[in-house]
C-alpha cells in the first residue's frame, strides 16, 4: 500500500508582502509523479521553493514522511530525504561534474564514491565529462548533472522545477525518460512543467494552479482529457 511521503496543508507563501501561492494542499505518495501545470505567474515555482525551504512559508504545513519541515532553512530541508532541482542555476558552474556530484552528497560524505558510481551508471555520458566544468556543458548535460547531484543521497522525494526548460525536443524526450526511470526506482516526484502535455503523460496525478491556488486536481489522464483543462491550460485537446 502506498503511503504519503510529502504532504502540504494550507500552504501559503510569497515574497515580502506579496502572497504568491495560497492555501495549497497536496499529497504525494511513494512511487508517484505529480505534475503541476498552470499559466506563468500561477505560483508553481514558488510552491516548490517553499516546500524546499528556499522561500519561507507564511502559514501552513509541509511534512516529509510525517515530519514537519515548514519554516526550516533550505540546508535543513536538504537533510529530510527530499532533494530539489531548481529550474535555473541548478549546477555549480565553476566546479567539475565530479565535484558537483560530490556536493550532492554533502550531508553524508562517506557515501560519495558509491553514490557517484551509481549516478555514473544511471547517466553514462557524465562519466566522460567528469573533469569538465559544469559551466562548459550543454543544457542537457547540465540538467543531467543537476539530476545526478539531487539523486546522490537517494532521496525519497524529488522536486523538479521545469526539467525540460530550454532543452531541444530530443533532449526533452530524454529528460522525461530519465524522470520516468528515476521514478521507477521508487522516488516520488513533484514536478512543475510548462510542457504540460508531456509532463502529464508521464505523471500519475496532475494539479492545475492558477492565481496562486489549486484550480483543478485529479488523475493525469483525467486532466489530459478534460475539456476545461485542455481549453484553458493545455492550449489544445490532447
Amino acid at each position, binding site marked *: 500500500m502506498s503511503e504519503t511521503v510529502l504532504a502540504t496543508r494550507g500552504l501559503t507563501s510569497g515574497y515580502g508582502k506579496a502572497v504568491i501561492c495560497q492555501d495549497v494542499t497536496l499529497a504525494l505518495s511513494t512511487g508517484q509523479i505529480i505534475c503541476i501545470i498552470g499559466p506563468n505567474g500561477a505560483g508553481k515555482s514558488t510552491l516548490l521553493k517553499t516546500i524546499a525551504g*528556499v522561500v519561507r512559508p507564511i502559514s501552513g504545513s509541509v511534512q516529509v514522511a510525517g515530519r514537519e519541515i515548514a519554516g526550516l532553512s533550505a540546508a535543513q530541508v536538504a537533510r529530510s530525504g527530499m532533494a530539489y532541482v*531548481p529550474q535555473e542555476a541548478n549546477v555549480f*558552474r565553476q566546479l567539475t561534474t565530479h565535484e558537483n556530484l560530490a556536493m550532492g552528497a554533502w550531508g553524508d560524505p562517506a557515501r560519495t564514491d558509491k553514490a557517484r558510481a551509481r549516478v555514473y551508471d544511471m547517466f553514462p555520458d557524465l562519466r566522460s565529462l567528469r573533469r569538465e566544468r559544469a559551466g562548459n556543458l550543454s543544457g542537457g548535460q547540465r540538467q543531467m548533472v543537476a539530476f545526478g547531484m539531487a539523486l546522490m543521497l537517494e532521496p525519497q522525494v524529488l522536486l523538479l522545477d521545469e526539467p525540460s526548460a530550454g532543452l531541444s525536443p530530443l533532449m526533452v524526450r530524454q529528460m522525461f525518460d530519465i524522470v520516468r526511470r528515476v521514478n521507477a526506482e521508487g522516488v516520488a516526484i513533484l514536478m512543475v512543467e510548462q510542457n504540460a502535455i508531456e509532463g502529464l503523460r508521464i505523471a500519475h496525478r496532475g494539479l492545475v494552479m492558477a492565481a496562486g491556488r489549486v484550480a483543478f486536481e485529479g488523475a493525469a489522464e483525467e486532466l489530459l482529457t478534460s475539456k476545461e483543462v485542455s481549453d484553458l491550460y493545455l492550449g489544445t485537446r490532447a
Partner: protein
Amino acid sequence: MSLQMIINALVNAALIAPPAMAFSLLFGILRFPNFAIGGYITVGAFAAYTFNVVFGLSLPLAAAGAMAFTALVVWGTHIIVFRPMQEQSAITLLVVSMAVTLILENVIRFFFSSDVRGFDIPLERPWKVMNAHITPEQLQIIAWSLVIGVSLHLLLAHTRIGRAMRAVADNPMLAAIRGVNAARVTAFTTAVCGALFGLTGVFAGLDLVIEPLVGWNLTIPIFAAAILGGIGSPYGAILGALLVGLAEEATILVLPSTYKVAVGFVIIAVLLLLRPQGLFGTAEIKK
C-alpha cells in the same frame, strides 16, 4: 629590464599575491570589494610587532600570533559589521569597508602613535646574485608566498571545506539547497583570509616599515592584482600580482619612482575600460 628589477618585481608580487588571493576569495563569498583589507594588514603588522618587540617572541612565533589575531579581527568584523548589513548593496558595503579601515588605522594610531617601527631581528647583509641584491627577508617572503599559493590551491581543490568555499562563491542558493551551511563556510573563509592579511602585515613589516598606513599603501596594488586576475578568481590573483609587480618595476625605467604607486590605479582604470572581468574572470551577462 635588469635582474635586480626582476627580483624586486618578484618580491612585490610575493608581497601582494597572498592578500590578492584572500581579497578574491572574500569577494567570491561576500560579493563586495572589501577595502577593509588595508586595515587588516596594518592590524597584522602591529600585532606581529607587539608579539615580537613588546613580548619578545621570535619572529616566526610572532607571525603565527599575528595571523591568529588578525583572523579573529577579520572574523569579528564580519560578524559585527558586515553580516548584519549583508542585504545592503555592494557600493554601501564598499563604503562601510573603507570606514572599517579608517577605524582600525586610528585605533592603532591611538595606541602606537604614527611613528615608524621595525621588527627586532638581527640585520643581515643582502646576498649578491650576479650583480643583483636580495635580502634574506625578501627571499623568505618569496618562499612563504609560494608555500601559501600551493597550500591555498590544495585547500580549495582537494578538501571538502575548500570545495564548499568554491560552491558557496559560485552559487550560494544551490549550496544551501544541497545542505551546505553557508554561514559556517563564510566564517571559515573570513578566518583563512584574515590569517593571510595578518601574514601580509608581517611581510610588509619586513620589506617596508611598520606604520599605520602600511596596509592602506598596499590596498591599490592588491586590488589591481585581484581585478587583473579576474576578481573572484584566487588563481588569477597570483598572475595578477606578478604582472602588477613587473609593471611597477618597469615604470621606474621611464618615470621617477614616486609614480610607482600610480601603476595600480592605471591598471585598474585600463582594465575597467577594456576588460572589466579581468584576465581569467567570466563576463557577467545582465538580463
